[in-house]
């Protein structure tokens, strides 16, 4: 603990750690010093002059954002001189700032508006014509309106330091200074929109959101992004039931305010015109729209017949549906059909990791560990492309704590730039890690983040190597999608039930085995697209598909049921670190039902009692029955993330390493959903090796 320094702010005694900034010390004491350019976690700029305060014995007003506290310092933040300086600063900032607040996207949540309201003058002495330049579009999602810009450099810093991209700069000087994009007239970057988010005024605006609504006309729902497996909280702004904005300005959730292009913009699939809004039944070889009651009648009859005839059933679950849905699906399959032919697209070897860590505590890394761990080892993963939030955490860790990062990847990655050591290795990653052993053992602790190349025996060897380092080691097994981890935890596996318990009876068929089997009578696909690049061998199978769109798999179906997206349901999902978070319903699509509701309706039709089918009730059952999921409910209910506990017992898994394969999405792809996101298709950078 650093020494405390005693100072006085506005006649109030304040204590703050030595070296802390005056602006922070005041904040801790409940005294607000206004600022634009100062931004927690970013480098200091001292550009806006808004935080000027009076310090006794200092010859003039000082910028509180760059002055460290000192013993005996006497500070006034509301003295006459300070108040006057603030008014003048705001008057200057408004010299060329257009007063187009009524049509500005930022109006109503603009920091400049708020500051002028609180500290500014109602009048200006400037009568000169305002300097004006036309607005520019830099990318499908980023627009820049120069005159509104107050040159606080927040966007430049968040892009350089936060994202590690460096796509923004400030060119020219004086009144003609402006923010400039990396490629002359356009941006080539992550398109994450952090610059727009962090802009205190309406200078940077979002192509997806601009001119759609006034901020106060939206309803805000904090839910979990449905794309990659990092589990970022995205607060969806909806207007008249349509999602118009995604951001996380309230910094709730594991990700704080961070979001990538997917969390911020790729909610647009939700309103894609091709969303299914009525069930489709195959009639005379063609899929035709039918009513829900007709669809359910056909479905229940078929399920009944297959169940009674003890027919062969294959069930393929989703990497995006909620834990509750995954749990109920496997429960239905196992109890009603008595089958273990259940699987999903696997992308990380969590089962082997949990088994290898059996008996250890504190060995599972969280997203917070990526920021706090004293050393990080990345194996076989392009984090900046595939796990943007974890990559951001690690970048911040390096920036704030100078943490050594070791990179072992087949190709160049963005993390190389700040890595202590970057080694190129693909299949031979283990040898490369062994070569690093000397350096790794010298660290205080280690967080190992690994991709799909690390699985089966290799993973066991990695854990053994970790044990031999003699330091605390934590692991994160990377998986692909929002609930890839939950799908495994919930037992969408042929050999493991919920909580990685061995299944009763014989293990079922794996996903490829199901596709190859010729004797399946019924194939039930919930929120997956296994036939995207494969075909179903069993021609006699009746195929039921629950999905948002008419996917390749839906085209083969006999019955397609329109499903609600993750943004249209309540429930929980588990991110790649095993952190459970709550989905909250933000929107509705007419005609679509949640997979949970659909499973419930089928059960009712069959006269099967699965318990009360609602998200809370099923989660209560999960808490009771699934190993590791006895997490504190209040944490989740209040929008927090609760990490599942390790299973702490052997996992009787017979992992087939070949089945574990990441889809290899980039920043701009997201599996089947890619096709339906206009934004992801418009940004032209991806996929690939930008900024490496």
């Amino acid at each position, binding site marked *: 603990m650093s020494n405390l320094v005693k100072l006085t702010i506005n006649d109030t005694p304040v204590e703050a750690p030595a070296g802390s900034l005056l602006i922070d010390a005041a904040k801790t004491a409940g005294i607000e010093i206004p600022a634009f350019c100062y931004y927690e976690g970013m480098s200091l700029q001292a550009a806006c002059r808004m935080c000027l305060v009076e310090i006794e014995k200092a010859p003039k007003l000082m910028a509180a954002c760059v002055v460290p506290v000192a013993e005996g310092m006497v500070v006034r933040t509301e003295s006459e001189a300070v108040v006057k300086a603030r008014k003048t600063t705001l008057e200057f900032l408004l010299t060329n700032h257009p007063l187009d607040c009524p049509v500005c996207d930022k109006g109503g949540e603009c920091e400049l508006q708020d500051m002028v309201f609180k500290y500014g003058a109602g009048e200006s002495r400037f009568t000169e014509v305002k300097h004006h330049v036309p607005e520019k579009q830099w990318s499908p999602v980023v627009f820049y309106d120069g005159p509104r810009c107050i040159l606080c450099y927040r966007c430049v810093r968040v892009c350089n330091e936060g994202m590690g991209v*460096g*796509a923004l*700069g400030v*060119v020219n000087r004086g009144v003609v200074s402006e923010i400039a994009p*990396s490629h002359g007239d356009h941006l080539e970057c992550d398109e994450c929109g952090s610059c727009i988010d962090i802009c205190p005024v309406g200078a940077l605006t979002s192509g997806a959101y601009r001119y759609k609504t006034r901020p106060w006309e939206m309803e805000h729902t904090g839910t979990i992004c449905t794309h990659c497996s990092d589990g970022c909280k995205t607060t969806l702004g909806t207007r008249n039931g349509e999602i118009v904005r995604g951001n996380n300005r309230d910094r709730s959730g594991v990700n704080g305010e961070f979001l990538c292009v997917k969390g911020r913009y790729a909610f647009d699939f939700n309103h894609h015109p091709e969303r299914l809004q009525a069930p489709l039944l195959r009639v005379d070889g063609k899929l035709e729209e039918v009513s829900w009651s007709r669809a359910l009648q056909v479905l229940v009859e078929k399920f009944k017949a297959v169940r009674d005839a003890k027919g062969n059933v294959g069930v393929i679950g989703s990497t995006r549906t909620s834990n509750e849905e995954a749990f109920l699906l496997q429960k239905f399959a196992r109890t009603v059909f008595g089958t273990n032919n259940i699987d999903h697209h696997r992308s990380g070897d969590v089962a082997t990791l949990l088994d290898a860590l059996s008996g250890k505590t504190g060995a599972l890394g969280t997203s917070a560990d990526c920021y706090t761990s004293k050393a990080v080892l990345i194996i076989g993963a392009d984090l900046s492309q595939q796990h943007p939030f974890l990559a951001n955490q690690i970048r911040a860790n390096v920036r704030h704590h100078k943490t050594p990062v070791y990179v072992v990847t087949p190709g160049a990655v963005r993390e190389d730039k700040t890595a202590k050591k970057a080694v190129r290795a693909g299949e031979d990653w283990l040898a490369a890690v062994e070569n690093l052993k000397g350096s790794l053992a010298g660290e205080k602790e280690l967080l190992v983040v690994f991709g799909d190349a690390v699985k089966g025996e290799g993973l066991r060897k990695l854990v053994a190597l970790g044990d031999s380092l003699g330091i605390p080691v934590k692991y994160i097994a990377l998986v692909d999608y929002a609930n890839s981890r939950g799908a495994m935890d919930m037992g969408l596996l042929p050999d493991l039930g919920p909580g990685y318990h061995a299944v009763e009876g014989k293990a079922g068929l794996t996903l490829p085995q199901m596709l190859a089997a010729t004797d399946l009578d019924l194939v039930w696909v919930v929120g997956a697209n296994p036939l995207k690049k494969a075909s179903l061998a069993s021609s006699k199978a009746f195929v039921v598909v629950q999905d948002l769109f008419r996917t390749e798999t839906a085209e083969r179906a006999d019955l397609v049921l329109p499903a609600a997206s993750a943004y249209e349901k309540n429930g929980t999902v588990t991110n790649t670190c095993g952190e459970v978070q709550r989905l909250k319903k933000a929107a509705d699509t007419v005609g679509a039902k949640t997979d949970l509701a659909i499973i419930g309706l089928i059960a009712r039709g069959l006269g099967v009692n699965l318990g009360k089918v609602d998200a809370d009730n099923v989660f209560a059952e999960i808490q009771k029955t699934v190993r590791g999921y006895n997490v504190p409910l209040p944490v989740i209910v209040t929008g927090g993330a609760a990490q599942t506990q390790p299973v702490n017992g052997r996992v009787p898994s017979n992992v087939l390493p070949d089945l574990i394969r990441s889809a290899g999405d980039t920043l701009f792809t997201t599996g089947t959903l890619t096709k339906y996101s206009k934004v992801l298709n418009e940004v032209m950078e991806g996929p690939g090796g930008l900024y490496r």
Partner: protein
Amino acid sequence: MTFSPQLEARFAELLTHYPEGRQRGALIPMLMYAQDEIGAVTQELMEELAKRLGITTLQVDEVTGYYSMLHKKPQGRYHLQVCTNVACMLRGGAELYDHACKKLNLGHKQTAADGKFSLEEVECIGACSWAPAIQVNYDFHHEVTTGKLDEILEGLK
């Protein structure tokens, strides 16, 4: 992009002035010397220096745009800078500038078609004690009058 051996040697020597990992500090002198040789800070030059210093072209652009003595467009063989800042203004700097404009038929930051002269109205050049002052390339001229300006211009070939 290639530079003369003299300039390369100068660059190499310059870079030794800065601690390891902070070579980007050499950017401003590199830009100035390169501008003297090439005649302007071209896009190609910015890209080359960015590569050499391990920074982005945009970062070079930021510096180039900030400093008034760095020019993206080629200057005349004789670049005339007339100060009209307070001290010079009080002693006739503005009239001097107007005279130069008429005489050369050029405006602020303009270059003559034959490439001989270019003109710029500048802020303080640090010669207030001998105001009004002008600068032709790196040479200073003090206490300039319109007549003296004509002589200076005629003396330039």
